[in-house]
């Protein structure tokens, strides 16, 4: 078709001709000076018809992936991955893509508001008054009565408040997120500390392993650093000239989206994870010859096989596989959310030592610390949150500031956060959405959306390099919101004294510069700069700064084998007949429920959209006489919820599972009054590391006689059956 003029080109030429004609013949001034008003006032540097791209950091979770946002005439159009960012190398997840539905969400908090508790709406106030409220709250209370509760993103606000705590004596900021609760981050770092003498986030080099043994880890969904782990998985799976296709074994009672990719899915009985790991360790040690290390010696594989409901031959076959290839073993998900979750984590890390993979390609490391970070920092465990709530109940906290987290929804109901708020004199939310916590606040002083604001995020795990991921505004703020850092700096200035001297910055950008430009003197940086201005410009242009040095740590676990792990089953709370597995929705995460396109994404395993469901084995459903879409009441010792049934073929008959992410009573039109929150079923039981034993509950199920059609993508006929005769 080289000489042919395509239809499209022809139309273009024709169009050009028409335009020329118009100019030659001359039109009236009105048509010559047509001005098209953009949706917003366009910045001067934007050219009509040209897109502008800005690098920033995704704030949908704490991972810190680099993104590049396409903007067009002052509007954000599309999120893409930042191809140069060492963590995600140009990739994005569904939640990152849908961040624009947060930015342009119709239910954002548009102005600072003063309100009464329990109301979602209130009276708009101006920012001067709002800042005075914050200043008065700082000034009129004792510093140790002032507390900040933050989400896991963004780190620059955390650093600002840590500075404030250090110099003005307010409580150090407490961070929490439901994702980190379900990831059992405290357990992982405690296990590393116990075995290797070094607290930190373990990093598993899936990419270079031959075999992966995953004990409940949902590393292809939301776990720790899903994009990085997914890239590793792709490399692991691909056969090349030099390596075979990786082989994956997943141990879990309910097949997760990660487990669905496994070559072997082993449905062990919940609570026996530690036993299974130790038994495999013992069998492997026997196959390899030599004495069985003490840590594995206390179990009897035959007994474990019956306790875990797995044939002994299967354990032997898995041990054989383990002993004869380069394996990495990963602990995660419900396996850590047991009463003995720490024992599970320690046993799995010990398996890696047994495999001889610690600090080797395809094995286990401790993640690199991020730049300007001196020691590993993790969010609060559920037990630490319980202590925090206790202080609230006792009236020790007079002012509570909340930013980036929705504790009323994300914490288990049993912890009593909402009730404890009544003993807190003043609650000030910086929430950008009218979430459950904002409803319970006295003031909502909305921060900018992540795409409208400055900041940085430390990358905790997922890459060999120390990475500080940078954030900058990609669009000007759409509403009358103000950066929380700016509000705090201004309020501290008004409060005077120690507050003012703790935050001696003109604004947020100066604070950022103060924190970031010290990196200029570091060697092997991803870019170099001659002065602060040049450094900040490059920091924004590249979407962060990283050190081109492999800084992951190869720990030494020489004494680990002599540890004693008690070979016991986990304890379960409650009287019900079913083990209960709550899991984070892979598409919604902890805070995605208000983004309509995330609601309409089918769940990877069930294809359900827009609601919560309970997964029940077909055999169990038959015994209970329940059908798909039938609403059942799920009752635990801590509470009860009603959810429709999804008959799920890949779950143990003695186990039921419910996704976390829905069940909001506020949080905007797409989230409110939709589905149910499985956190309402969770009692306050913790593992030895202080993480919630969220998978350590037993529940019972009652029929309700109601039905609710569950919208799902797997049948093109829809859920209403073939009888579509009625008009809808």
């Amino acid at each position, binding site marked *: 078709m080289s000489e042919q003029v395509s239809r499209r080109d022809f139309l273009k030429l024709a169009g050009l001709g028409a335009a020329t004609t118009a100019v030659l013949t001359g039109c009236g001034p009105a048509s010559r000076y047509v001005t098209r008003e953009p949706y917003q006032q366009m910045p001067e540097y934007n050219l009509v018809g040209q897109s502008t791209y800005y690098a920033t950091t995704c704030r949908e979770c704490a991972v810190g992936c680099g993104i590049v946002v396409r903007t067009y005439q002052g509007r954000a159009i599309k999120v893409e991955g930042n191809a140069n960012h060492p963590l995600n190398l140009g990739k994005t997840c569904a939640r990152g893509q849908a961040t624009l539905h947060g930015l342009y969400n119709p239910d954002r908090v548009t102005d600072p508001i003063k309100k009464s508790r329990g109301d979602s709406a209130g009276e708009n106030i101006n920012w001067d008054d709002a800042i005075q409220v914050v200043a008065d709250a700082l000034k009129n209370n004792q510093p140790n009565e002032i507390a900040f509760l933050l989400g896991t993103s963004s780190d620059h606000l955390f650093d600002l408040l840590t500075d404030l705590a250090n110099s003005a004596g307010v409580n150090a900021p407490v961070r929490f997120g439901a994702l980190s609760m379900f990831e059992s981050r405290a357990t992982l770092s405690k296990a590393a500390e116990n075995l290797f003498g070094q607290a930190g986030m373990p990093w598993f080099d899936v990419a270079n392993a031959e075999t992966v043994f995953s004990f409940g880890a949902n590393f292809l969904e939301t776990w720790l650093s899903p994009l990085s782990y997914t890239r590793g998985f792709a490399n692991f799976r691909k*056969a090349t000239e030099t390596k075979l296709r990786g082989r994956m074994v997943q141990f879990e009672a309910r097949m997760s989206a990660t487990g669905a990719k496994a070559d072997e899915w082993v449905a062990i009985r919940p609570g026996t994870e530690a036993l299974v790991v130790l038994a495999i360790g013992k069998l492997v040690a026997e196959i390899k010859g030599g004495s069985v290390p003490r840590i594995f010696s206390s179990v009897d594989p035959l007994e474990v096989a019956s306790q875990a409901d797995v044939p002994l031959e299967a354990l032997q076959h898995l041990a054989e596989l383990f002993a004869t290839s380069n394996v990495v073993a990963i602990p995660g998900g419900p396996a850590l959310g047991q009463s003995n979750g720490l024992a599970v984590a320690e046993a799995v890390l010990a398996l890696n030592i047994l495999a001889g993979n610690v600090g080797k390609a395809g094995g286990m490391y401790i993640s690199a610390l991020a730049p300007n970070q001196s020691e590993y920092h993790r969010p609060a465990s559920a037990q630490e949150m319980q202590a925090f709530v206790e202080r609230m109940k006792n009236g020790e906290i007079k002012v509570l500031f909340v930013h980036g987290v929705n504790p009323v929804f994300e914490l288990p109901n049993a912890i009593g956060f909402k009730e404890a708020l009544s003993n807190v004199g003043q609650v000030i939310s910086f929430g950008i959405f009218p979430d459950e916590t904002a409803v319970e606040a006295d003031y909502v002083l909305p921060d900018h959306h992540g795409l409208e604001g400055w900041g940085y995020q430390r990358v905790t795990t997922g890459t060999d390099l120390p990475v500080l991921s940078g954030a900058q505004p990609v669009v000007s703020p759409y509403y009358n919101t103000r950066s929380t850092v700016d509000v705090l700096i201004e309020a501290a200035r008004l409060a005077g004294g120690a507050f003012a001297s703790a935050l001696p910055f003109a604004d947020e950008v100066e604070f950022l510069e103060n924190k970031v430009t010290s990196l200029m003197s570091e060697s092997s940086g991803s870019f170099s700069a001659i002065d602060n201005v040049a450094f900040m410009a490059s920091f924004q242009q590249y979407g962060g700064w990283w050190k081109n040095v492999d800084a992951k740590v190869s720990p030494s676990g020489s004494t680990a084998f002599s540890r004693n792990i008690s070979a016991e089953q986990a304890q379960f709370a409650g009287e019900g007949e079913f083990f209960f597995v709550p899991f984070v929705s892979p598409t919604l995460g902890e805070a995605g429920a208000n983004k309509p396109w995330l609601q309409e994404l089918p769940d990877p395993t069930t294809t359900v959209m827009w609601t919560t469901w309970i997964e029940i084995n077909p055999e169990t459903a038959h015994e209970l006489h329940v059908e798909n879409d039938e609403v059942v009441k799920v009752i635990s010792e801590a509470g009860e919820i009603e959810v429709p049934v999804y008959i799920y073929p890949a779950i143990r008959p003695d186990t039921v599972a419910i996704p976390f992410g829905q069940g909001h009573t506020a949080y905007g039109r797409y989230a409110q009054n939709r589905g149910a929150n499985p956190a309402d079923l969770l009692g306050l039981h913790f593992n030895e590391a202080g993480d919630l034993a969220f998978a350590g509950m037993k529940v019972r199920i009652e029929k309700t006689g109601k039905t609710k059609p569950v919208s799902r993508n797997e049948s093109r006929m829809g859920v209403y059956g073939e009888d579509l005769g009625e008009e809808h």
Partner: protein
Amino acid sequence: MTTLSDLKISEVKLAAEEGGKWGMVIDQDICTGCQACVAACAMENNIPFVGEEDSGYGRAMHWIRIERFWEGEYPEIKMTNQQPMMCQQCGSAPCEPVCPAFATVHSQAEELNLQVYNRCVGTRYCANNCPYQVRTFNWRDYERPEPLPNQFNPDVTVRRRGVMEKCTFCIQRIHKAQDKAKSEGRDVMDGEFTTACAQACPSNAITFGRIDKEDTLVYNMIHHGHSHGKKHLEELGTLPNIVYMNGNGAA
């Protein structure tokens, strides 16, 4: 009995140089079903969300969906490898001849199946005739309350009620790259741009590129591995331009 595959329609058509210009390779072995492609496609192409009830009726507008099937029964249950399914950009597309309004036509320049929204009168014959069930129909004017429309991609038409739509291989991106290449007096280079789904895909399971030349990304993936993959329902003679692989066939 004569079956469709006995007719060897595909061989007849293949001989007639219906090779296609753009194509895709999808490695189902590394697809994790994470839905990043689905979200990316929706954001790039101004696809409306339809809400809980309409999606329950099978009216969700996903241009790409991830199919998964079950094999066996508990405990010997296995989920088949995830299968991203979108318009296969058939060389001989069953949707095209049935459109009375010539809204579903074949582009000679791009060798893609076009959907011309302002010609479409909503007979839905094309969706009826598509063996891949990848066409979606705007049953309503789906509401996108302000300020959500700020996010619209200006390069893509916003469709309204009564119009059929489907995956376009991100033709707006193809055109942008072609225009740039033309202004620089060259042909579009392989890997110069990609579709929204392939760009987002965290495991790089989707690869998009030229298939009308040798030594391109897609060509090499199809021809240099141990497995050459397969095309879906090829026996119908649709000449799809998407190749599905389950790994590269090596052990």
